């Protein structure tokens, strides 16, 4: 298996009373609450963490969110380009720039091709559908974003793989009469594509296209369903069964000397769920396209009853749900192996460790333990026995 480090570069320094008062901590919180001197220190620390990852063999994931406390990576290609130059060895996944917000996929292809060349072929390109506050921060129409995402992916792929251009594109959402990017990518025919989704029809389409499917915090069952949809779509299309390298999962993670230490520090990660996703209703359940109309009654009735936001997510509970890997190195290796078995095989685990209130020193300690004591336990694993996992799934279903 391969392990990846993903840090969103959160900014947990806004006074609690400001956050409590704000209707949303994304999109509309004024940037006077972001001290650029603190931001500069965060960038330094996290780029140092990425250099450490490069030395010890943890791959690196970047992403972007906008206008909020959860993420100071405003442009994934910018950050990925820096990481490409700071590192020498590991692979770098941009997951990703917001293709449904940005007006010209050709520029995105050009940026990624540039990064692929300057990293000498270490780039992987990830796609996210995006939505919610991002549509507001980027003034992008929140309707039909899945269709827009697929058209952007198609155009980016064609721009990366066409070498006798220019070619013309007159699509539904994007037009460009003269596509001819320089440089062309280092990797041929193109860098690996990834996409983050748990939407089953989209997982099926990823399967048919052989794109790496990653889930974010989906837990055991949802992840298993997504991967099963991917595999079923390939079977139905008479395509070869996918290898485990087509599957990825992002979870919160902390590796400590002891289980106790890991859960204590892991608890600081829960800030992501308890604080950093607070969003006003117009950016969430009432945003056009946020819920399919037939799902609106369920979504809105839950809102009407003002269900309290989670404020006490216990790290141990997150571990139990398969949303966090935390413990001493042996514990975490066991958790990941168990996860792999329960989802029917997986090759990539993306660990979100420097999250919430976790410090630079704490993050580096976890990375070192991960690389030295967890990663070796995840090599040369025996193939997943589908019969055994199917039997286990049946047993669990019967127990419910």
């Amino acid at each position, binding site marked *: 298996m391969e392990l990846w480090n993903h840090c969103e570069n959160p900014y947990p320094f806004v006074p609690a009373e400001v956050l409590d008062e704000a209707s949303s901590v994304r999109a509309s919180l004024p940037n006077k609450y972001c001290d650029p001197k603190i931001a500069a220190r965060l960038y330094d620390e996290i780029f140092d963490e990425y250099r450490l990852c490069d030395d010890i063999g943890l791959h690196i994931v970047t992403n972007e969110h906008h206008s909020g406390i959860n993420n100071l990576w405003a442009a994934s290609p910018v950050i990925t380009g820096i990481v490409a130059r700071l590192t020498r060895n590991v692979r770098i996944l941009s997951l990703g720039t917001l293709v449904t917000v940005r007006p010209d996929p050709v520029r995105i292809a050009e940026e990624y091709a540039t990064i692929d060349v300057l990293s000498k072929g270490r780039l992987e390109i990830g796609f996210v559908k995006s939505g919610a506050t991002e549509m507001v921060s980027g003034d992008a129409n929140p*309707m039909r974003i899945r269709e827009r995402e697929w058209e952007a992916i198609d155009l980016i792929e064609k721009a990366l793989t066409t070498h006798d251009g220019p070619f013309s594109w007159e699509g539904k959402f994007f037009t460009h009469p003269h596509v001819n990017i320089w440089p062309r990518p280092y990797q041929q025919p193109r860098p690996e594509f990834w996409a983050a989704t748990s939407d089953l029809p989209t997982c099926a389409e990823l399967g048919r296209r052989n794109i790496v499917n990653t889930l974010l915090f989906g837990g055991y069952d949802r992840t298993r369903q997504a991967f099963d949809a991917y595999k079923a779509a390939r079977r139905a299309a008479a395509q070869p069964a996918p290898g485990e390298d087509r599957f990825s999962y992002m979870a919160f993670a902390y590796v400590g000397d002891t289980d106790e230490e890991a859960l204590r520090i892991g608890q600081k990660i829960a800030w992501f769920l308890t604080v950093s996703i607070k969003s006003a209703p117009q950016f969430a359940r009432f945003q*056009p396209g946020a819920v399919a109309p037939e799902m*609106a009654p369920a979504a809105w009735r839950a809102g009407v009853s003002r269900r309290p936001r989670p404020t006490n997510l216990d790290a141990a509970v997150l571990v139990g749900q398969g949303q966090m890997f935390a413990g001493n190195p042996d514990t975490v290796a066991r958790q990941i192996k168990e996860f792999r078995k329960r989802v029917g095989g997986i090759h990539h685990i993306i660990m979100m460790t420097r999250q919430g209130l976790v410090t630079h020193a704490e993050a580096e300690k976890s990375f070192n333990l991960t690389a030295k004591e967890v990663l070796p336990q995840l090599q040369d694993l025996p193939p997943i026995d589908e019969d055994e996992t199917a039997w286990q799934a049946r047993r669990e279903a019967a127990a419910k």
Partner: protein
Amino acid sequence: MSDRLRAGDIDLEVLRRGGGRPILLVHGVNPVSPKAPFLDLLAEHGEIVAPSHPGFGNSPRADDFDTMYDLVHLYREVLDALPGQVAMVGFSFGGWIAAEVAVSAPAKLDRLVLVDPVGIKLGGREERDIVHFFNTSPSDLNRLAWHDPTKRPAEVYGLGWQANIDDRMSDEAMIALASNWDALAVYAWRPHMYNPQLKQWLRRISVPSLVLWGASDRIVTADYGRAYSALIPGARFAAIDEAGHHPELEQPRVFVELVARFLGQSA
């Protein structure tokens, strides 16, 4: 099954009431509600024909039907499908559609009424003429759109409808509101609620026109309305007191009186 209207090959849900000369209502954020109190009053002056735009209510929207351009040509087809000369009344977002249709000078149109329409850009680049429909909190929308939100007719929804959702509402009503909101965003997310070119062509409107405005409208103010009206040759402007963005819902009698008087005048 709702009443239907065919315009070319497009099938629309339509609400009809009364008889006589057609009065075409072009709706705003939600289709004209059969429970709106102004309907019966206005139906004394002609046959109300109130279609739901594609994507709203029970009117299907084809994938490629997704711009103001499509709506304008659709409503030109609707005019063609109605008997005789037609008075067109456009509300809010539908006022924008009606203004665009009127600029195209269709032969069947003989009267235009715009009710708190959006559709044009008047202020400077850092001034917002129109409160953002989608990015504004439900409670603010509800406050800004109504003179007195507590006097909204039961089960009739305008801007700020999100603030009026309660657990007693039927699933069907919620699904309809969600569909309408989605369709509105398809047509009008960006540029938000206006066509930058429309202002310079309003001079092409050649039918008698009345611009009505809720004096308390803070989604688009009466000052915007006066300036809008001044761009339409010969248009009359009237403010309706104690009404916000939906004067037809807050002051149905005054609204119908003004419209009826206007329709009764000779050109």
